[in-house]
């Protein structure tokens, strides 16, 4: 396995955010991590990229524990993280932002810059403009492009569709699929479950710091609770979906390959 989390617990001071999360991402896979606001999705990604350290449990990359690698060394190990809210460098130009992606290894920067710009033609038009002046969609493209500049094997995406118009969301998801085609594994955090499950191979559902469901994308799409909580008509963005905490697991799997994580 490319990435393995086993029984990871993370706390912010007295607040426990992850209560024993286990998940896996294989080489070349798209795996999605779903969950309502505050479920712990961002915390999971931040833990993988070393910004947070687990209180217990372990994160492994290629079977190697990540605890021996400092956070800034993770890009070198092939993991690229597109943070929540895009976080482009506001006063750097688009070009400088992209070059920041190649900070740890500048050998291929030039060629990669052309490659990324080809992937996002919109960025070419804005190449000299400060990152902070781009629109939300452009910033998301820039953030993803920046992550690609480091030639990652695994890319972590934290809610890339957040706050974007449906048209742009579609573009972004197409690009994600395209990136994956090129052999990059993707761990995609989303609240937009429908779109995420459409491109993902597998998925996990996180609730209050626990993985409550795991399975193939098709299985999850068919699962009643997923449909109710994350795909309901009236809660299109899924943000405030009523997620029965813990209790859901007792109901057992309803469909196909989606099984409650605690019994898996």
């Amino acid at each position: 396995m490319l990435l393995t989390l086993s029984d990871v617990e993370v706390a912010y001071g007295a607040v426990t955010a992850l209560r024993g999360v286990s998940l896996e991402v294989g080489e070349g896979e798209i795996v999605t991590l779903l969950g309502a606001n505050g479920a712990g999705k961002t915390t999971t990604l931040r833990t993988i990229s070393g910004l947070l350290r687990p209180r217990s449990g372990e994160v492994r990359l290629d079977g190697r524990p990540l605890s021996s690698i400092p956070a800034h060394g993770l890009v070198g190990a092939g993991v690229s993280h597109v943070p929540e809210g895009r976080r482009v460098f506001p006063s750097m130009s688009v070009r400088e932002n992209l070059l920041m992606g190649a900070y740890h290894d500048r050998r291929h920067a030039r060629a990669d810059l052309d490659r990324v710009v080809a992937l996002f033609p919109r960025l070419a038009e804005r190449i000299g403009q400060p990152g902070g002046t781009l629109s939300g969609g452009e910033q998301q493209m820039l953030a993803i492009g920046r992550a690609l500049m480091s030639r990652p094997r695994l890319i972590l995406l934290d809610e890339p569709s957040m706050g974007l118009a449906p048209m742009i969301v579609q573009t972004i998801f197409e690009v994600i699929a395209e990136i994956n085609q090129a052999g990059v594994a993707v761990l995609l955090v989303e609240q937009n479950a429908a779109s995420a499950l459409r491109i993902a191979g597998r998925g996990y559902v996180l609730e209050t710091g626990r993985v409550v469901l795991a399975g193939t994308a098709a299985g999850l799409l068919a699962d009643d609770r997923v449909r109710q909580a994350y795909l309901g008509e009236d809660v299109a963005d899924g943000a405030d979906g009523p997620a029965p905490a813990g209790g859901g697991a007792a109901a057992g799997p309803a469909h196909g390959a989606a099984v409650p994580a605690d019994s898996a």
Partner: protein
Amino acid sequence: MGFLDQFWQLTIDGLMVGSLYAVIALGYTLVYGVLQLINFAHSEVFMLGSFGGLFAARALLPDDGSVPGGLASVGLVAVGLGVGAICGGLAAFTLERVAYRPLRRRSAPRLAYLISAIGASLFAVNLAGKEFGRQNVDLPDLFHNGTVFTVFGADVSTQSLVIFAVAVAMLIGLDRLVAGTRLGQGIRAVAQDADTAVLMGVNVERIIIVTFVVGGLLAGAGGFLYAMTFNASYSMGFVPGVKAFTAAVLGGIGNVRGAMLGGLLLGLVESYGGYLFQASYKDVIAFLVLVAILMIRPSGLLGERLGRAA
């Protein structure tokens, strides 16, 4: 003689002193950029660099009290600058390690950093006072200080020229460093968004210490230039320190070019103001400028570009 007669002379003097403020201001602005923190002890880095450069140059001066010339002068100034820079860099490194890093490691509240820096400043000032005495220490002439040329009737002395040239060279060098090198890329990234910089592979801890050291090198060399014009003393750091900080805020704290502009402007304002009002209250001018900017345009002339824009 009226103000207009003196205008060009005041301008030249103002630019010279202002270029020194700019050099010191860079230390504040760089550290502010990466840490969002006013490094209160920066003035002591300046002071220690000044002493280091002064003592080194003095030790190499001929015993007979004659003023050296030619290559010897160039060498002496170079040694003074170099040793001053090294002492400043070392002081800044030590300061970061002792007074800041332990606090960073446990994410202390912001107030703690300020207080710790004040403690370090108090310590350094008075230790210097104890070791080097509490009088002003003069640096004998390192070269014949004549008039090189005149502009609009104002004399430009060798000394002014040396100081201005060296200071501007350092300013340009730093600007290139920040704008055009990998280190500069890292510094700017940390200044704008440290978390995300980490995700790009920037070793924030390294950037922080290097930033301190770069600021210290500049302040140390600037300290030597200052001692060359005026003198050195254990308490010399405070006033130029406040002024350089003012310069940094004037230009937009966290903004490298802003600090340069702010320094030169403040030097000019002070030079004109000192002539128009009373020279003994010259130091008050900088303070008034500071309060005025804070009230009128707290983000400074060029804005806080390197740091997180508000």
